[in-house]
């Protein structure tokens, strides 16, 4: 155990720490800790008031236990007590405890703030520093409220000591970062800027950080700092290494200060004043020159400090982006670093060059290094360096080197770290699209992407390739052929199946002439993957199958066989079942004209911004997006609505809705119970008419399971249609509200809502005649086993104008509507009908 000779080391603490270290197991450690906690608890609660030393010792022990990773829920009060001690070390431990174990108890906070206030006004610089350190470490809102106005005053007061000024500056910075609204600009701001001229370098160092942060939000307030910063910087850069004494670090004058000054200058545009600008350019040139000089020391600290300044200077040059000479020099310097022995420097050079690549002046200069960067990508052993190389390739890509770069990135992708694959995939996809002159290359690239990194190919990427293939006639045949070949691979990624299924569904006919890719071969190929795929892919494949039926009538029987089998039409997934059922019906019922219209080729997508870019930006933040994308505002291709596989289906649906002859689409057998539109003689007669017309609920409205939700006309229903009624009914396939039935006497409107397994329907009866209906009643009846699912029926009468309620047995059909629909939702329907 090392002897602690500085100050009064707490022996008890040292012993405790030794004990913990000697514990052989986690359980032993916990046991020892609990013993100590119990001991401390009893001491704190004890009658005897503890002396300062003991309190300090126990508080310190608690702190140690907390830092080991255990929770501490007491001791705060004692720590706060220590704050008011006169002994420095006791205060120190008290402050340390409360800065590490931040407590939100308001009483404690009040006491802490009080102690801090006392220390701040104590005029003892060591105590003031302690207090300021605490505020900077905690930086809570309550502290900001209490001290945000006090600290600026301390900072700029003439009699404040240097060490206190330093701490005050950074303390204020912390408060500003956490509660910017509480730190108000005032007359102190101009005085703060003048701290840049302070004699004490430590004060300047601290003040710069503060000013840098403040000037980002209030540039005008602080713009006088620019010229001061430039003169300070040039003084440092041109000083001999002995001038700055203790602020020289391994023969480099004031490296931290220089870096901070350069950072501050990056908050502003290049200075307008010619003299200032000239001085600054001179500075930067000196820094660049020094990099070429032989080093004054072999130590790595020397080169790190020197290069730190160099890299910061290069960042400034890039930020200004206005001095071509400097930019080219910077680029050359970085180029040298690309091949440096030290890995750190290669890493930083690659990183810096990324930003340089986006400047128009230096873009060409950066491109000259492409071979080095590609080499780095292939040979660097450190994955972080390889990743930087990949980023740089992406940034320097343009039309001249796109093919080469994409090829390199693809081969890198094969062995890349899993954590970066998704980003790489997005980047390759963007580059391939942006610089594709020949779209077959684009298709190849994307398919390669899927082959190499299928798991990481997000939806946006493969939607995009489909959009582009649809929009470009010239590449459709090629796409079909390539996809067909790709699918023949024994192990094929699911995304490939998706893309393949879609493209063959749309353009399979372009390769059907070749016997090797005849329709049946294509179908079998797709179907061989069917059972290996997830539900969305299978759904897409089903759509492809119905398209095949349209394109290749000779496959109809085979495909229908597949659709008809139980695993499709009784599939537990609603989507698949629905599709199988509907497509089967569509294929059996629709004439070839109808089918062709329904399954017409997808129209070109409208032009909209690529979603891949958006996804990349979201993933990496705005900084990672290079200027190649910024130029990219007008690009062809649009964003798919909803989903790649949804698209064709919804349009098929709407097409079929439009083209299906409407009246025969009797979904519910309403026809049979619909009253013929006889003219009402009188109310009384009418009632009879209505009842007699109605008859028993017509069960040839035997709802065809497969016909019900389909938009295709299903029924073999004999009763003549009442065209308006049927049309009205059709819309309930998609809508919940509307007019359910209407004739000259009566209008029935329905409003329904469904949530999960519950549904509620309102029926509104409207009397269209000018006479009152009498004895109007309604009733609900429900067939068979579904009766149990009706939770409650309440009839309520709503009087609307002079309408009265009217008996109707549309109830029964309405019931069926609810219940059958919910059956397809695969739920236990519990229906509340009101």
């Amino acid at each position, binding site marked *: *155990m*090392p002897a*602690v000779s500085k*100050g*009064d*080391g707490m022996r008890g603490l*040292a012993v405790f*720490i030794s004990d913990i270290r000697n514990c052989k197991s986690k359980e032993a450690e916990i046991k020892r800790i609990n013993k100590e906690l119990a001991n401390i608890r009893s001491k704190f609660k004890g009658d005897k008031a503890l002396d300062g030393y003991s309190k300090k010792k126990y508080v*310190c022990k608690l702190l*140690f236990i907390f*830092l080991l*990773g255990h*929770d501490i829920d007491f001791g705060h009060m004692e720590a706060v007590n220590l704050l008011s001690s006169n*002994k*420095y*070390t006791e205060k*120190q*431990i008290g402050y*340390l405890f409360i800065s590490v174990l931040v407590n939100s108890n308001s009483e404690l906070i009040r006491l802490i703030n009080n102690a801090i206030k006392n220390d701040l006004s104590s005029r003892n610089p*060591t105590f003031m520093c302690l207090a300021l350190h605490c505020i*900077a*470490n905690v*930086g809570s809102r309550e502290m900001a409220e209490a001290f945000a106005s006090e600290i600026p005053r301390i900072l700029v007061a003439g009699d404040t000591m240097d*060490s206190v000024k*330093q*701490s005050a*500056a*950074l*303390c204020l*910075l*912390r408060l500003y*970062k*956490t509660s910017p609204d509480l730190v108000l600009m005032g007359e102190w701001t101009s005085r703060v800027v003048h701290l840049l001229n302070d004699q004490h*370098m*430590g004060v300047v*160092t*601290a003040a710069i*950080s503060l000013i840098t942060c403040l000037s980002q939000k209030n540039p005008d307030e602080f713009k006088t700092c620019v010229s001061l910063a430039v003169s300070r910087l040039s003084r440092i850069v041109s000083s001999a290494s002995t001038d700055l004494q*203790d602020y020289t*670090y391994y023969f480099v004058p*004031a*490296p*931290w*200060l220089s*870096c901070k000054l350069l*950072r501050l200058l990056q908050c502003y545009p290049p200075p307008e004043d010619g003299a200032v600008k000239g001085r600054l350019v001179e500075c930067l040139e000196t820094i660049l020159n020094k990099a070429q000089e032989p080093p004054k020391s072999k130590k790595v*600290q020397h080169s*790190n*400090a020197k290069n*730190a300044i160099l*890299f*910061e200077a290069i960042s400034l040059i890039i930020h200004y982006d206005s001095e071509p000479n400097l930019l080219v020099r910077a680029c050359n310097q970085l180029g040298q670093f690309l091949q440096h022995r030290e*890995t*750190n420097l290669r*890493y*930083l050079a690659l990183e810096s060059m990324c930003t340089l690549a986006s400047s128009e002046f230096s873009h060409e200069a950066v491109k000259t290094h492409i071979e080095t960067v590609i080499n780095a990508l292939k040979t660097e*052993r450190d994955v*972080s*360096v390889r990743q930087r190389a990949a980023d740089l390739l992406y940034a320097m890509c343009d039309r001249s080197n796109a093919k080469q770069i994409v090829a390199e990135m693809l081969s890198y992708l094969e062995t890349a770290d899993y954590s970066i694959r998704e980003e790489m995939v997005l980047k390759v996809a963007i580059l391939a699209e942006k610089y594709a002159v020949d779209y077959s290359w684009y298709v190849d690239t994307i398919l390669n992407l899927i082959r190499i990194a299928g798991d990481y190919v997000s939806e946006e990427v493969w939607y995009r390739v489909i959009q582009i293939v649809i929009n470009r006639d010239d590449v459709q045949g090629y796409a079909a052929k390539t996809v067909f070949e790709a699918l023949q691979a024994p192990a094929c990624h699911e995304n490939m199946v998706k893309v393949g299924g879609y493209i063959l569904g749309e353009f399979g006919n372009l390769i059907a002439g070749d016997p090797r890719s005849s329709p049946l071969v294509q179908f079998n190929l797709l179907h061989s993957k069917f059972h290996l795929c997830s539900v969305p892919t299978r759904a897409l494949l089903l759509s492809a199958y119905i398209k095949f039926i349209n394109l290749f009538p000779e496959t109809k029987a085979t495909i229908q066989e597949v659709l008809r089998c139980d695993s499709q039409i009784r599939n537990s997934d609603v989507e698949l079942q629905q599709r199988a059922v509907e497509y089967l019906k569509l294929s059996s019922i629709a004439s070839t004209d109808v089918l062709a219209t329904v399954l017409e080729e997808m129209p070109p997508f409208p032009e909209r911004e690529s979603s891949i870019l958006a996804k990349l930006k979201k993933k990496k*933040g705005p900084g990672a997006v290079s200027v190649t994308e910024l130029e990219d505002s007008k690009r062809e291709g649009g964003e798919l609505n909803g989903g790649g596989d949804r698209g064709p289906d919804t349009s098929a649906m709407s097409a079929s809705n439009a083209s299906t002859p409407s009246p025969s689409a009797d979904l519910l057998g309403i026809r049979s119970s619909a009253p013929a539109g006889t003219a009402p003689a009188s109310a009384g007669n009418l009632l009879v008419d209505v009842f007699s017309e109605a008859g028993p609920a017509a069960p040839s409205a035997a709802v065809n399971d497969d016909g019900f939700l389909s938009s295709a006309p299903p029924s073999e229903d004999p009763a003549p249609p009442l065209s308006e009624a049927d049309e009205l009914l059709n819309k309930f396939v998609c809508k919940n509200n509307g007019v359910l039935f209407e004739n000259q006497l009566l209008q029935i409107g329905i409003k329904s809502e469904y949530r999960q397994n519950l549904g509620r329907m309102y029926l509104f009866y409207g009397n269209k005649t000018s006479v009152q209906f009498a004895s109007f009643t309604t009733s609900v009846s429900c067939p068979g086993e579904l009766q149990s699912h009706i939770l409650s029926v309440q009839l309520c009468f709503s009087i609307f104008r002079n309408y009265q309620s009217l008996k109707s047995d549309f109830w029964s059909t309405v019931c069926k509507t609810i219940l059958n629909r919910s059956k397809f939702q695969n739920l236990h329907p519990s229906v509340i009908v009101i």
Partner: protein
Amino acid sequence: MQFMLLFSRQGKLRLQKWYVPLSDKEKKKITRELVQTVLARKPKMCSFLEWRDLKIVYKRYASLYFCCAIEDQDNELITLEIIHRYVELLDKYFGSVCELDIIFNFEKAYFILDEFLLGGEAQETSKKNVLKAIEQADLLQEVRHLIKITVDKVF
């Protein structure tokens, strides 16, 4: 700087300084993940890596890893030198510092750090000045201690 962690090769945390407000749970999670990531790095790899949306700068001194998390726009090389300067300070103070010194005098390690970095920024880069400030504080203690002993002896 967002935070600084010191940990041993077995992953035991020796010092943790947080410059951003985070809940205890988040701190533990970050510590666990970052320690794992850094310990997995091989010796010849570079001292920088990207982790979440931060840049991590780390360096191993004997049995201790010094690990800092900085923001995107911060300078990596100068952060490496911040780490080195901190080690120099500890070394001067403890005389050939080793991990044990930091374990048994953890509170001193925090005090020294506070004199050098505040709110995540370097406040005093002169080694002399920082050490002077610490020694002054120590002096305050010793004087009192001496006085106490003398007083006790007298009475």
